[in-house]
């Protein structure tokens, strides 16, 4: 990081690298250096303000009202299934006193200067934009009231705006919002201090789950438009043959047979960008055709010769041995209290274990796809992207244009889970349109392309060691986490997790243990590494929550009581006291780690699941609890393991505390979905590499959970909260407790300790996998 510490969520890092590259090309670009970790003499900046674009809360940017009384709310954050188009719009509508059936949602194009931060990852949309969108709605309501008062020539204190009308109390006169729209726009913007927000007791939509989805009716009718669905006149369809090995180069290709396929129009080489990959296209050969099928057939007919380069020898089995060796040696210390090494040497009841998480592919149901056209020196892109502004920056850079000449329309995202934060596919569309003199081109990734050219969730090997005292409680805790860093995707040679990565559930564990030592070995990345829903929390949560279960059993204690004892009494911990200087980019004062809330979700989930009840043979309950993205989640999974190792999950109880709940039904949906995705991670997902190539290709060899395997019942218990509490994340925090809760349940049911994901269904292998205890 050139001696500088990483910024919030890696976003600044990504953008800086890209902009830095552009600057080398002669463009003078300056990125505001802020972020969550203050440099010497710099005041720290937290939350949305730390991101490029920051916060915009101007009502004229987000609200427009038509004379026919339709209220248009612009949502600037991409929709990928989290329901944000509904949830942010209902926040505006509530403070605005708009009638939800008259609200229409429009999607903002990429423009952070106008809309504020649009980078939709890190479970941040509601955390960062709940209050600003309340201000947007409230300010717009004040302007409508002001317009009515001016028209009636009465003091504004005599009018009230509610239910999409303004009422003059004295005379009973009324005007609709539509009647006032034009005049309201000319009202002065209220001073920030004058903007009066509702008392939460007056909320009509916030916290109610009463609002229909902005997109539901279109989805069930097949009208919703995703990235794959863009259609433009004269559009060509493209598929791309990319290097199978990261960094591989095209030596030679023969397009003759491809061009002979009916419908194929052109074959175009896309230059490979030098490593690191960043979010540039991987390069390769594109086949452009009048329909997708012809493009696919044309690609099959290409004759391609590649030079695999240095990664052609990469083998994930051998890499596992490197990881295993790395966690068995001292490494960079990132948190140290007491003297864990001395306590471990001193002896006592010593427990050690290693946990393995493989590479994961996102496999969103909509694979990457994007459309571009260039008209009159201006490029328009339609793409399902989580990072609209980064997409715009990328296209601007690739085409050598200026930012105002590039428009990125954000379609619906057919799932994303972190993959679509990295818009290499949109860059391909832009380059291909340029190669076709601006003709519209839609690039379609096949499922094979998606599985083989993902930005993978990092493989990880976690080693934990503990010594138990006479009371069975740990005296010492050593944790080493070896995983490639996502930074390597942007910075050649970056090794080992950085503090935004070990800050995800490894360093910020509030257990009362006198001697704690956390270490990060340097291991290289030989593939594109990206973010997968909840990211490094997956591996850390799996290891730590499995290990606690192991310690409890070693101590002869109930795992629930043991974990509660280790957490200790309710208190608010400053994350800096845990050596966590990152805290997900949030203020340590506003967002301390509240052990009372962590305890409460454990107590709630176990209560609802009737923890401790007698279980039939082959049944077991497993518990895990994690804190991530400023939210607290505990899961109790009930498992039934058949004689042949078949796993069935009759029921899951999840207790969740994200602070205030803006759209409770969508929070429940996110928790249900995170549970099922977490079960795929636990039971199914694994990407392996051989000779530098991904060995999986489609849902046959990269299976994901299907209906019959899914839990028959997922019960989500939302913890009561208050709007005085700052909101936590929702999209990701439900995932980390799932794999350990399942494996702990299987241990309870069978006595088999599973330390290697995925565990498969049915279970296979020897009774105790991974290292011995």
């Amino acid at each position, binding site marked *: 990081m050139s001696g500088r510490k990483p910024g919030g969520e890696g976003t600044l890092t990504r953008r800086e690298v890209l902009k830095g590259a552009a600057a080398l090309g002669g463009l003078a670009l300056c990125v505001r250096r802020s972020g969550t970790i203050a440099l010497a003499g710099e005041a720290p900046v937290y939350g949305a303000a730390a991101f490029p674009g920051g916060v915009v809360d101007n009502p004229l940017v987000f609200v427009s009202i038509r004379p026919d009384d339709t209220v248009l709310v612009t949502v600037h954050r991409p*929709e*990928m*299934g*989290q*329901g944000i188009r509904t949830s942010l719009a209902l926040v505006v509508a509530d403070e605005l006193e708009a009638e939800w059936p008259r609200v229409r949602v429009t999607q903002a194009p990429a423009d952070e200067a106008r809309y504020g931060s649009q980078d939709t990852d890190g479970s941040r949309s509601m955390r960062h934009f709940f209050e600003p969108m309340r201000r947007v709605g409230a300010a717009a309501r004040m302007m409508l009231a002001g317009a009515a008062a001016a028209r009636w020539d009465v003091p504004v204190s005599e009018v009230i705006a509610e239910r999409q009308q303004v009422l003059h109390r004295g005379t009973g006169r009324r005007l609709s919002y539509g009647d006032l729209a034009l005049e309201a726009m000319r009202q002065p913007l209220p001073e920030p201090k004058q903007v009066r927000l509702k008392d939460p007791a007056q909320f009509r939509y916030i916290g109610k789950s009463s609002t229909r*989805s902005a*997109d*539901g009716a279109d*989805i*069930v*009718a*097949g*009208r*919703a*438009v*995703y990235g*794959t*669905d863009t*259609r433009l006149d004269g559009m060509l369809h493209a598929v791309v043959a990319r290097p199978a090995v990261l960094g591989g180069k095209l030596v030679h290709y023969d397009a003759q047979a491809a061009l002979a396929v*009916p*419908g194929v129009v052109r074959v175009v080489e896309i230059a490979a960008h030098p490593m690191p990959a960043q979010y540039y296209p991987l390069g390769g050969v594109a086949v452009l055709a009048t*329909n*997708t*099928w*012809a493009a*696919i057939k044309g690609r099959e007919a290409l004759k391609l010769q590649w030079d695999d380069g240095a990664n052609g020898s990469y083998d994930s089995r051998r890499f596992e041995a490197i990881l295993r060796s790395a966690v068995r040696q001292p490494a960079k210390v990132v948190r140290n209290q007491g003297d864990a090494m001395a306590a471990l040497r001193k002896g006592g009841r010593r427990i050690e274990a290693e946990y393995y998480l493989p590479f994961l592919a996102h496999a*969103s*149901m*909509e*694979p990457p796809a994007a459309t571009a056209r260039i008209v009159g020196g201006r490029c328009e892109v339609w793409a399902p992207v989580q990072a609209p502004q980064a997409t715009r920056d990328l296209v601007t850079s690739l085409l050598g244009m200026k930012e105002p000449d590039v428009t990125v329309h954000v379609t*619906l*995202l*057919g*799932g*994303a889970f972190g993959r679509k934060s990295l818009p290499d596919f949109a860059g391909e569309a832009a380059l291909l349109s340029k190669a076709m003199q601006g003709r519209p081109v839609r690039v*379609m990734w*096949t*499922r*094979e392309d998606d599985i083989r050219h993902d930005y993978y969730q990092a493989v990880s090997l976690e080693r934990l060691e503990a010594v138990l005292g006479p009371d069975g409680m740990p005296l010492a805790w050593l944790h080493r986490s070896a995983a490639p860093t996502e930074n390597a995707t942007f910075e050649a040679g970056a090794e080992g997790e950085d503090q935004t990565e070990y800050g995800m559930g490894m360093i910020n564990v509030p257990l009362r243990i006198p001697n704690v030592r956390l270490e990060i070995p340097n291991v290289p990345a030989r593939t594109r590494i990206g973010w997968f829903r909840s990211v490094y929390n997956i591996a850390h949560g799996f290891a730590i929550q499995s290990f606690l279960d192991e310690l409890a059993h070693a101590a002869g204690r109930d795992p629930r009581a043991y974990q509660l004892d280790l957490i200790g009494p309710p208190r608010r911990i400053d994350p800096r006291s845990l050596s966590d200087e990152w805290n997900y980019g949030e203020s340590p004062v506003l967002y301390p780690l509240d052990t009372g809330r962590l305890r409460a979700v454990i107590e709630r989930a176990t209560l609802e699941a009737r923890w401790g009840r007698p279980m039939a043979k082959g049944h077991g309950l497993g518990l895990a609890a994690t804190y991530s993205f400023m939210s607290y989640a505990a899961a109790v999974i009930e498992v039934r393991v058949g004689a042949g190792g078949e796993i069935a999950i009759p029921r899951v109880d999840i207790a969740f505390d994200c602070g205030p709940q803006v759209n409770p*039904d969508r929070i429940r*949906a*996110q928790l*249900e*979905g*995170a*549970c*099922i*995705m977490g079960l795929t991670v636990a039971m199914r997902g694994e990407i392996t590499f051989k000779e530098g190539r991904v060995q999986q290709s*489609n*849902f*046959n060899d990269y299976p*994901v*959970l*299907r*209906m*019959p395997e*899914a*839990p*028959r019942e*997922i019960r989500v218990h939302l913890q009561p909260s208050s709007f005085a509490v700052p909101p936590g994340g929702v999209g990701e925090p439900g995932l980390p407790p799932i794999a350990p809760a399942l494996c702990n349940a299987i241990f309870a049911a069978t006595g088999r300790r599973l330390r290697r994901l995925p565990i498969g269904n049915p279970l296979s292998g020897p009774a105790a996998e991974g290292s011995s205890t």
Partner: protein
Amino acid sequence: MQTELSVNGRPVKVEAAPDTPLLWVLRDELGLTGTKYGCGMGLCGACVVHVAGQPVRTCVTPVSAVAGKPITTVEGVERDRLGRTVQEAWLAMGVPQCGYCQAGQIMSAVALLRRSPHPTDADIDSAMAGNICRCGTYPRIRAAIHRAAGQLRGSP
């Protein structure tokens, strides 16, 4: 080659190589983009439509195999009460998250309810096992199918 199709009650003529999967004819030639690509191998169910009332995976069905047979896509599902009831149940239960797979899910569910108006959980597992949802909406899909079945029977 020209093929005559009947899609959502309307006759259409398309130019396509006979081995072209129906999926790409619907999406690229006819602009019916509600039917989705997910795998290209008949593994995920995102592309399910009805051909003569039967659920069919269009990504592995050559257009030549369906010439002249009545095809219903998600865009035409609201033409009968069963289809509308399923759509309404999907909305009432808040099934969709990203929504990309839901056209295929709905088409599979409608086909299930047409042949089995009182499906058990096992029936649902069996009928829906071919439809992947990466967002994890399975519990709500199950609930929505039961709800639709109840409404079609006239009970709440």
